[in-house]
């Protein structure tokens, strides 16, 4: 195992997530794409901790941050979707295009 | 203090668990229909082995059958970190978290089985279980953390060692009670059996037959057994006790906890989540938090 291999995995996951976040119409599916991208962050941060600076806890703290970010992202995403769905009955980004600022 | 068994310990573990589960199921049958029903679980197993597997229209069989298998696997994997006397299959450094994770697999497994069958009753059961999970899981986690706090470690061996002088149940009664209750909840066992209750024709179980049903029901009993067995190292001092060897103490304590859970579960009606949720969040979470606070103050002292 080497740092490169882990970073390759992270890049692949990030790209798949990016594809999902860009291509999907449904808010929920976009969130799935975002989660995959944060997943890549988890892999990358763990690998950097292990291979570059195992004596310092920073890598681990970044992983913890990423996990929290996922939870917050999902909670807020669903709350916003529920609110939009209640008031406008849409769950697709294209249909909420008039919310553009 | 604990010694890790050789590789065959992992093969022996499911056998030991299954023996406990069968004994518990026999005890339950005897309580339900009298002394003649001792062999009922074994006969039911035989019956399920020859019964046809049901298929339903447009079922998602991958998820359906996969959910049942996941429950069975989780029930066994949860027990990897549970010591029997001084033997343990895996002395994982974060054993308590591992145990909790395997229990949470039940969330996904039960919902998948309810969803996959493509049946209204199954789906109602699946959603009921998620609601139940949201109610019992946080108090359950705080109860686990309280035991880990008392020992200052997530390793099960350290938790057992920390109870050398005084069992945790003595000074963590709230955590112990909440733990036992949530074991019934996570194994969706009476009185927390709303996910598989008769009012929805068996709920998640409504469409399962044959081997699929066997796998799912066995997984449920194994989960209950693992939960009961984990109460021993967490709160009841593990294999510690006078005279008898450690493994026998573990067996006796596990049997006592399991028997108590089966017996007490028959004492009242099903607890529905629309009622229990409020209690879980307004009473149990603060209670377990206060318990954890007390324990941490004592530890720092």
């Amino acid at each position, binding site marked *: 195992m080497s740092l490169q291999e882990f970073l390759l995995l992270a890049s692949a996951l990030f790209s798949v997530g990016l594809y999902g976040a860009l291509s999907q119409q449904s808010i929920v599916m976009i969130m799935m794409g975002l989660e995959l991208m944060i997943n890549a962050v988890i892999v990358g941060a763990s690998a950097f901790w292990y291979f570059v600076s195992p004596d310092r806890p920073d890598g681990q703290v970044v992983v913890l941050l990423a996990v929290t970010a996922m939870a917050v992202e999902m909670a807020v995403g669903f709350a916003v979707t529920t609110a939009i769905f209640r008031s*406008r009955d849409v769950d697709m980004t294209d249909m909420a295009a008039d919310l553009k600022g | 203090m604990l010694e890790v068994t050789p590789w065959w310990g992992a093969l022996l573990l499911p056998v030991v668990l299954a023996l406990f589960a069968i004994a518990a199921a026999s005890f339950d049958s005897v309580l339900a229909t009298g002394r003649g029903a001792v062999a009922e679980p074994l006969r039911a197993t035989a019956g399920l082995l020859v019964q046809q597997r049901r298929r339903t229209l*447009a079922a998602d069989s991958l998820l359906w059958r996969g959910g049942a298998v996941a429950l069975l696997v989780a029930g066994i994997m949860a027990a990897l970190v549970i010591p029997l006397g001084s033997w343990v299959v895996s002395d994982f450094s974060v054993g308590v978290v591992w145990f909790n994770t395997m229990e949470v697999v039940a969330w996904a497994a039960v919902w998948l089985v309810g969803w996959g069958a493509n*049946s*209204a009753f199954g789906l109602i059961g699946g959603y009921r279980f998620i609601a139940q999970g949201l109610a019992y899981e946080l108090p359950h986690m705080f109860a686990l953390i309280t035991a880990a706090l008392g020992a200052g470690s997530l390793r099960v061996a350290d938790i057992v060692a920390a109870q050398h002088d005084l069992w945790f149940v003595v000074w963590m009664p709230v955590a112990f009670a909440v733990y036992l209750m949530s074991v019934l909840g996570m194994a969706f066992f009476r009185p927390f059996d709303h996910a598989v209750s008769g009012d*929805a*024709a068996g709920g998640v179980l*409504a469409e399962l037959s044959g081997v699929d049903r066997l796998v799912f029901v066995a997984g449920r009993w194994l989960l209950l057994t693992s939960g009961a067995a984990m109460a021993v190292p967490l709160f009841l001092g593990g294999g510690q006790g006078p005279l008898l060897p450690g493994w026998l103490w573990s067996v006796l304590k596990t049997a006592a906890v399991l028997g108590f859970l089966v017996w007490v579960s028959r004492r009242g009606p099903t607890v529905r989540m629309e009622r229990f949720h409020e209690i879980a969040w307004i009473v149990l979470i603060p209670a377990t938090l206060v318990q954890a606070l007390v324990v941490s103050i004592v530890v720092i002292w």
Partner: protein
Amino acid sequence: MVRVAGRGAAVDLTSWLLRRTPVRPLIAAMPGGTWARVAVEQFVRQNGWRLALSPAEANVLVVAGPTTAEISPYVDQVWSSIPAPRVRVHVMDGTDAERALSSVASTLHDVELQRGEAQLALRKEGLPQSRHDQHSSAHSCGAAMHDDHASEMSCGGAMADEHGGHEDHGEHEEHGGHQHGGREEHGGSHQHGGHHGHDMSSMELPGGLSMADRGADRDGLTLDQLHVPLGPVLPDWPEGLVVHTVLQGDVIQQAHVEVIGASPAAHDRLPLVARRLDSAARLLSVAGWADAAAQARVLRDEALTERSNANDLNRWARRVRRSRLLRWSLRGIGGALPRLHHWLDDIVAGRDTAGEPAAHELAALLTGAEFAAARLIVASVDPATHEVTHHA
């Protein structure tokens, strides 16, 4: 253990296992079949059998009471969804239960017979294959057939298909505007020509099922609705009762009560105390307190044979009345708790104070209830189904 050394040994193993299969009867109680059902339940208890909750769990279908042309398709539907090994018996009235049921175990354990049954069971032709490469087949768990669908589904088995999607917004106008209250506010939705750019409304899903409607739910969200019929073959359910529900999640938006298969001549009521005990047993069973329900059934059978012991009745009634968990669980469920307490009074006093249940109010009580609450309400009303006429 039996060693599987070849085909012969495999057959031996199968028959060895089959002989050990416990009997799991599912009782299909017909209107006018109360005495038959009571006799069956008594036989089941005396033989240490356990009742099945759904066709999937059952291996014996016991039809209790006279069948009519109206109800027999439902019974056949349930029968077709019981997996082999299986046996079907018919108990006409209380007197022939013993004769009909005593041979059930040997029929169930007969390898040759059950091999034939396995060819017939779960082999319903004509249902289309699903996408997941399934040899699909019949389906149900003991509830009525679906109102609108040609293919026969029961117990709401058609679930996800109907759940299958949101309907086209534009089409909603043509549907006669039923239950989509706040829809007009979002007139903008017309422009999309379809919720997701598909015209779903005219589309048929695999299986010949139509899509579900949507309607406003109590949280102000517009979500899918299911049409799920409950009954007539459900455990602890009044004989012949069918409640056609519109479900959203597990909240009943609309209920339509119907009784099928009732023959007006059939008058089969149990004596008062036994009747009340029977109703209480059902309610306790639906509430999930199996032990108290089983005890109530024992007391019921004793009352029917005039072997009643007032002490036992009192002790049981006191235990049920005092259960704090039961009170906590039933409080606020459409008057279920007061009705149960009236029944307990009747049982102890031996005379009728509760009066007969008003079955025509059932539909009103059920609307807005959650599924679990609805089951409790139905059990707590426990309408004598031969008196119910069609109510909307």
